[in-house]
């Protein structure tokens, strides 16, 4: 009898093991069903709207439907993306589960109300896109008080209504360059200035004066050229930033403790000397983390790294983010976001964004000092065409082994009614036929109008 009971117990154990497996399966299906549906072609996706209710993504979009404006989606083509699977790291591809008119209770339906309401301003975005003319590049702008990304343009873009052969598209069409790494040029000097103030204090930095003879030979005898080969003469930090003087910053770096620069850069989110940093993302979209190499303050690689060339790379989005801390005069970066809120299959709001902050990596005192220097720079006549009170820093980045030059501009608008931080990159602009000021003016004007 005892042995029979043992046999029964074994039968129960086998059945219980199966039932445990079934419970795991049920949990797995409940947890992952949205993910499975993201691969399904039998689910109707909802729309993406801008901050004014204009459509940014329409799953039923076609040339026929948008025949009145065939380029309707061109300005946000590689930011919002589509569901074709050709583009990754876009708002749609990374948030497709929020757009699915699906839930486990009802299954896939054709009449759901799933949607994403983005923070972008389509009208302003289009104007900025058009302002690039025949130039390629990227521009990103956000409200540095709330974190809403209002403008995000990347040229060349893709017309999602009409692209079948991806190989025929111009290089870079399928990616939003605002989220990918680029050589920052002299816009990096803002970070170097922050590192200098954090390392030796503002008073020590402000007392530093160096001579710019056009080319400065560092302690190892390597020449650091200035863009103005005739030299800027003797300058202080404020003048050097306005002049974007390379020899000044090379000499400043030589007098800074290497650990101090490295620590500040790492706190700001740089990957220094290939160190690992936490991932940066905006609503699922991965953002390139800044990286540089700093080994010896007397070495030209480190000096160029602090000037914004060499092995330094930063995404325009991250350059813009630091501007929020400077504009606010705080030690916190306002975290940007692209999704304001989203609704589920029955129209209930399931996700509502709120303003979040993260450490800027430098103190609020440092922010305030940089803010003043940048505002002073912005008052310079050469930025008058922007037509607003701005704090800015330009940059010229040599790319493709010096074959081309990109023009950059980072900054913020110092007006209470227009708290906008921005970063602009115009590619292959060595002949300066287009000014970053024009784009900045367009960003601020179009946002001001709307």
């Amino acid at each position, binding site marked *: 009898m005892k042995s029979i009971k043992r*046999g029964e117990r074994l039968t129960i154990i*086998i*059945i219980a093991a199966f039932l445990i497996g079934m419970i795991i399966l049920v949990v797995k299906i409940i947890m992952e069903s949205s993910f499975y549906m993201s691969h399904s072609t039998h689910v109707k996706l909802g729309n993406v709207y801008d901050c004014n209710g204009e459509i940014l993504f329409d799953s039923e979009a076609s040339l026929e439907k948008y025949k009145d404006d065939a380029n309707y989606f061109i300005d946000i083509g590689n930011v919002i993306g589509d569901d074709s699977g050709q583009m990754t790291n876009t708002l749609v591809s990374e948030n497709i589960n929020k757009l699915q008119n699906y839930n486990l209770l009802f299954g896939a339906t054709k009449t759901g109300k799933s949607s994403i309401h983005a923070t972008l301003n389509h009208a302003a975005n289009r104007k900025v896109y058009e302002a690039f003319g025949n130039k390629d590049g990227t521009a990103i702008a956000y409200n540095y008080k709330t974190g809403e990304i209002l403008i995000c343009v990347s040229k060349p873009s893709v017309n999602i209504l009409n692209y079948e052969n991806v190989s025929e598209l111009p290089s870079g069409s399928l990616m939003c360059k605002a989220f990918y790494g680029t050589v920052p040029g002299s816009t990096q000097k803002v970070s170097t200035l922050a590192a200098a103030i954090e390392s030796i204090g503002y008073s020590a930095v402000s007392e530093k004066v160096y001579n710019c003879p056009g080319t400065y030979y560092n302690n190892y005898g390597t020449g650091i050229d200035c863009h103005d080969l005739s030299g800027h003469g003797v300058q202080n930090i404020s003048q050097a930033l306005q002049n974007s003087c390379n020899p000044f910053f090379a000499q400043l770096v030589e007098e800074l403790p290497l650990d101090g620069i490295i620590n500040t850069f790492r706190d700001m989110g740089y990957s220094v000397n290939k160190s690992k940093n936490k991932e940066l993302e905006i609503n699922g979209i991965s953002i390139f983390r800044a990286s540089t190499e700093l080994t010896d303050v007397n070495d030209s690689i480190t000096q160029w790294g602090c000037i914004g060339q060499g092995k330094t790379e930063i995404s325009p989005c991250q350059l813009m983010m630091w501007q929020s801390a400077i504009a606010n005069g705080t030690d916190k970066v306002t975290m940007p976001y692209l999704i304001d809120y989203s609704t589920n299959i029955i129209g209930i709001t399931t996700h509502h964004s709120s303003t979040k902050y993260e450490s800027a990596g430098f103190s609020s005192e440092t922010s305030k000092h940089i803010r003043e220097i940048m505002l002073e720079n912005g008052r310079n006549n050469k930025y008058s065409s922007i037509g607003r009170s701005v704090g800015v820093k330009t940059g010229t980045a040599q790319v493709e082994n010096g074959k081309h030059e990109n023009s950059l501009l980072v900054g913020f608008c110092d007006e209470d009614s227009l708290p906008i931080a921005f970063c602009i990159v115009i590619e292959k602009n060595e002949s300066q036929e287009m000014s970053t000021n024009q784009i900045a003016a367009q960003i601020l004007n179009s946002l001001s109008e709307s």
Partner: protein
Amino acid sequence: MFHNGIKYGRSVMLVLLTHLIMLSAVVLRGNYDNIQQVYPLAIAVLGLDLVYIITLRFFYNQMTYTMDFLLLLILNISVIFQSCFGGIGFSSKHYITCILALICCQISFLLTRNHIRLMTIKKYLYIALGAIIGIMLITSVIFGRYNLWIDLGFFQFQPSEFMKPIFVLLCATSIMEQHEKKKILFFYISKEALMLTGAFLTIFLIQWFKHDLGSLPTFAAAYACAVVCRICYPKAKFSKKMLIIICAIGAVVVVAALKFAPGYVQDRLSVDIWSDMHGHGYQQCQALMAIAEGGLFGKGPGYGSLIEIAAADTDIVFSTICEEWGFLVALLIIFFIVSLLILPMINKPRSYYHTTMILGVAAVLIVQMGLNIFGSCNLIPFTGFKIPFISQGGSSMITCGLLAGMLKAGQSPVFRKPEIPSLQKKRQIQSGKTRRDNI
């Protein structure tokens, strides 16, 4: 005393009501152009219900009927499922195999309820197993090494399926003589145990040879249960230490098997289905998407699209049901099948032979069901099994019918010695003589 759990009338009501509700769902939510398309299915399902109920009541009265009703319930649900996949119709082939399964269940019940009778024909079980293996080898020569099917034109069958009930019976019968063992060196060896192990190894080798290792876990589960029953037997001279050693050896064998498995097995073990969703992970990805698409209540009978995928009505049938009928209905049918296995806990087996037989059947059916459902849903590697009583396939259905009969036999066993005709005559003659002498 026998227990049936539910009264006869209520059992009849439960079966009829369930089938009527499902047929109503087909009418109300089904994908058909004309209501007449539903008639053959409705007539077939309700007709089989009535015929079986009448037969059980008036021509084949038994003390245990719950198993019969549960089997009838499951099989007709399966007919409704299979007839609706991709559009309402009537799957006559599946219907016939379900009737065959019901018949096989009764045959198996009558053959296996008396263990003493079974002992007298045990050698024929080994002969049958040998014959099946022989047939498999012959088919390898005629139809190719990896061919698992025999095609008779009008009927296709898979001989390896029939090894399952035979092997379960071998496991059960081997227990009966397990105390007859001799000590060789340090081990107590029983002839029965050696023969059973030999049978298992032979099955393993033939499966390896045929590249059909996917079905090996069912045999391994039945064999493992038999071994555990042997160890658990009170007179067995097994210490806890020996039990631990055997478990450790088992674990090492499993690890080694996974490590040194053939390339095609390794591919299935290591595939990331979502990164290979158009290759090795195709069926599983489609199956999971279909489950999600169906939601809790399904798209409606006949509205599924998974049927276009290979093996939608066999290996990934759970997902096909989920898509059309919903996740809840799919779970309900699994509950019915599990209930079939739980029934022997109500009418408890009264001999170690019947316990081992029920355990073997439960192990085979549960492993088969687990491999199908968990494999198709990517919880474990996908092996391509059939859900008992639900998936389409004649060999599988007949085998499941035979196994269900064994479950039933375990609940209403017979312990009297079999009546052998020659002995019966002798006894009659003897009794006649005695009577005359008395006169």
